[in-house]
């Protein structure tokens, strides 16, 4: 895999492209982009057949080992790597150690091993074992193994240990990578940790730079432990880290941010030159029964357009698509009322339709980001999206307060007024878009 930056705009944001994939040399994945999160090698809830109805082009798949390590024996027997094994050979893969969309127990570290929390229990993984698995998974991109799951509130001692362990493991990964025949066409990405302590972050960056001739990219981690609270970091705090790390590293390598980040964080990261995100946010929304309904038209001010909670009874007779102008398979044929019925009856098609919409819509958010970077209007777009996210946040806060209202009828009244505000205007918001 090779990465080129195509367009550097007036800010730090850039459009780039990943290309030179072994199996499909002509295919290109443009950045900034979100990968599609997989579980057991498959895009969550979608078969290869359905996925091909959603996206006609090749996508980057995010393959966390924590939900796919059990494919090892089958992969060995087949010998062609995880994309082929999972029936997704026209797509590209980035294998990572963990899935930051999941919360896992803390601790359990050993000197040179980190715990992998799988459905089949805890497995202690060393860097050597990790690289053994990479030779079996044969991904296009390898995120080096790291001890990186921690919030920005983490104490100094834990951070110091994580930098130490990550450093040692990166050395092993690099050594193994250099001599591996199987991985010659893969791109090794080093993980930077220690974000909460500037001295430790510095150390992690210095260590990364020692291998800069080998590493094709950097992944920023150690920003969150995966919990809601730790994902809810003030944006300026993250902004400083995005900027600092980006500035300290060569520009021509792939910049990856790991974690289940909301659109506001993602667009902020993009503005500092970060290229690839793990896509788990879209999956999280689908699993909650939520549908993303961002308005991408910067000429229209749509405060209350962000997401729908389709579990809500208010949708039971709304025979309109999730988003009127959306061209995804779910919006073309199906209604809010139907999806709400599927959620209410716990039918699997609910997750399928929500995944189709959210993955498509999330992908569109990146498409529009690239367009705006190319025309030097990214700052306007970023503000436009962040505004939608923030007004949703404050609305939701009001809703949560309404829920604590002791008078039930008043509570229902307040809530329904707020829901109405979200739902009534927005299904047409993107009609004139694109």
């Amino acid at each position, binding site marked *: 895999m090779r990465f080129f930056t195509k367009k550097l705009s007036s800010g730090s944001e850039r459009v780039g492209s990943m290309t030179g994939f072994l199996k499909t040399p002509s295919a290109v994945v443009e950045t900034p982009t979100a990968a599609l999160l997989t*579980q*057991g*090698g*498959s*895009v*969550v*809830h*979608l*078969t*290869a*057949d*359905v996925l091909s*109805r959603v996206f006609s082009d090749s996508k980057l798949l995010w393959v966390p080992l924590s939900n796919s390590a*059990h*494919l090892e*024996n*089958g992969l*060995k*027997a*087949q010998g062609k790597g995880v994309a082929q*094994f*999972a*029936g997704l050979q026209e797509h590209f893969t980035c294998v990572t150690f963990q899935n930051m969309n999941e919360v896992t127990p803390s601790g359990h570290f050993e000197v040179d091993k980190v715990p992998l929390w799988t*459905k089949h229990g805890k497995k202690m993984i060393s860097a050597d074992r990790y690289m053994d698995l990479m030779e079996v998974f044969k991904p296009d991109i390898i995120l080096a193994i790291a001890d990186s799951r921690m919030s920005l509130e983490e104490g100094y001692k834990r951070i110091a240990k994580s930098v130490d362990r990550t450093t040692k493991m990166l050395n092993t990964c690099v050594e193994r990578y250099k001599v591996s025949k199987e991985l010659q066409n893969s791109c090794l990405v080093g993980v930077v940790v220690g974000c909460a302590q500037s001295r430790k972050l510095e150390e992690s960056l210095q260590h990364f730079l020692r291998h800069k001739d080998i590493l094709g990219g950097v992944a920023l981690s150690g920003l969150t432990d995966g919990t809601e609270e730790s994902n809810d970091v003030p944006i300026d705090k993250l902004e400083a880290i995005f900027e600092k790390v980006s500035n300290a590293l060569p520009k021509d390598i792939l910049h990856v941010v790991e974690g289940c980040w909301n659109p506001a964080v993602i667009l902020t990261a993009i503005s500092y030159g970060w290229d690839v995100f793990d896509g788990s946010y879209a999956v999280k929304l689908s699993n909650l029964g939520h549908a993303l309904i961002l308005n991408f038209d910067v000429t229209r001010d749509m405060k209350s357009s962000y997401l729908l909670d389709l579990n809500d009874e208010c949708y*039971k*007779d709304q*025979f309109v698509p999730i988003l009127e102008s959306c061209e995804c*398979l779910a919006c073309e*044929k*199906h*209604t809010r*009322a*139907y999806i709400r*019925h*599927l959620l*209410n*009856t716990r*039918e*699997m*098609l609910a*997750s*399928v339709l929500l995944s189709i919409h959210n993955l498509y819509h999330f992908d569109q958010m990146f498409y529009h980001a690239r367009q705006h970077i190319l025309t030097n209007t990214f700052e306007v777009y970023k503000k436009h999206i962040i505004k939608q996210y923030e007004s949703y946040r404050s609305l939701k806060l009001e809703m949560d307060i309404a829920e604590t209202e002791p008078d039930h009828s008043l509570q229902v009244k307040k809530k329904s007024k707020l829901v109405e505000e979200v739902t009534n205007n927005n299904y047409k918001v993107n009609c004139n878009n694109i």
Partner: protein
Amino acid sequence: MALTFSVQAECGVTRARAGLMTLPHYDVKTPVFMPVGTQGTMKGLLPEQLEDLDCEIILGNTYHLGNRPGTDVLKKVGGLHKFMAWNRALLTDSGGFQMVSLLKLAEITEEGVKFKSPYDGSEIMLTPEKSIEIQNCIGADIIMQLDDVVQTTFQDNDRIKEATERTSRWLDRCLKAHSRPLEQSIFPIVQGLLNSELRRQSAEEHMRKNVNGFAIGGLSGGEAKDDFWPMVSLGTEVLDTRRPRYLMGVGVAVDLVVCVALGVDMFDCVYPTRTARFGCALVKKGQLNLKQKQYETDLTPIDKDCSCSTCKTYTRAYIHCIVSVETVACHLISVHNIAFQMHLMRTMRENIINGTFVQFVKNFMSEVFPNYNYPTWIINSLKSVGINLCENYCSF
């Protein structure tokens, strides 16, 4: 006309026939298997996937749909077709079977079925009129009369007699209550459990009604196969050949082959999609339980001769890895299992049209039972319609 049925070809030896059933939403080629989409969805599959699988008609459950989303929503949207974005044919059951299978507290009187709602505990009375009202609202092409359902293995003859006769009385009430006869066809249900006298009586009474097709009910409920097939045979013998006959709740491959030979045109069963959720894939000889360790490194598809999207793309080894963990595994096996059913029905139809149905049945059975250890019920049922399975190996 809400339904026209034309027989396109007959086997000549057995009672099997290939037909075309023209319904308001689709022309259905028979014999046909109808997958069951209980709550207005086919277990995780998109309508376009079902179309690609050649599904021409699918089932919905009146009892479930009447509760959720409810008739008010279905009325507003203009029926289940629109609600679930399915443009082909639909059939709904009457809700009576769920009363008995799901609800222990159902009380059946002449008026209807009284039961406690499992959703909110309130008392509900499902009458023949109410069932048809809901089904009119759902708007399926074919709808079922409410029948008085007794467990198939039930022994009390008085109760069976009462249920059979009540079913006929309820049929009259259903037909009277039916408000959309130009768009929907009510099928009466032949009852009588395993009592051939009552069954004959039930079928003969239904024959006198102005209906477009018939269902054979009260079977496939745990009775012995030796008891099962004569009841099917009796049904297709009494019911006239100009109208389609639908055998309820049958979906296992050998049963389908035997019953097509006995003259049945339509089948439904939850089996292909339910067994998929347990990780079982249908193959000619039965099913593969993909959870088993032996598939861990098996790089062949579920069925190398199958052309479904699952078999074209995925290995047994891969599905083994994700089975019972990822919803995708369930979707993949459902696609294959429905494709398997559709392929079997299509093959039978082609053989009927080509005049090769008898040979097909013989070949099919010898593949399923390679040692010619045919169960007696299969030997006897096929013999009754002129296929002698034994002559093959007896002559050796």
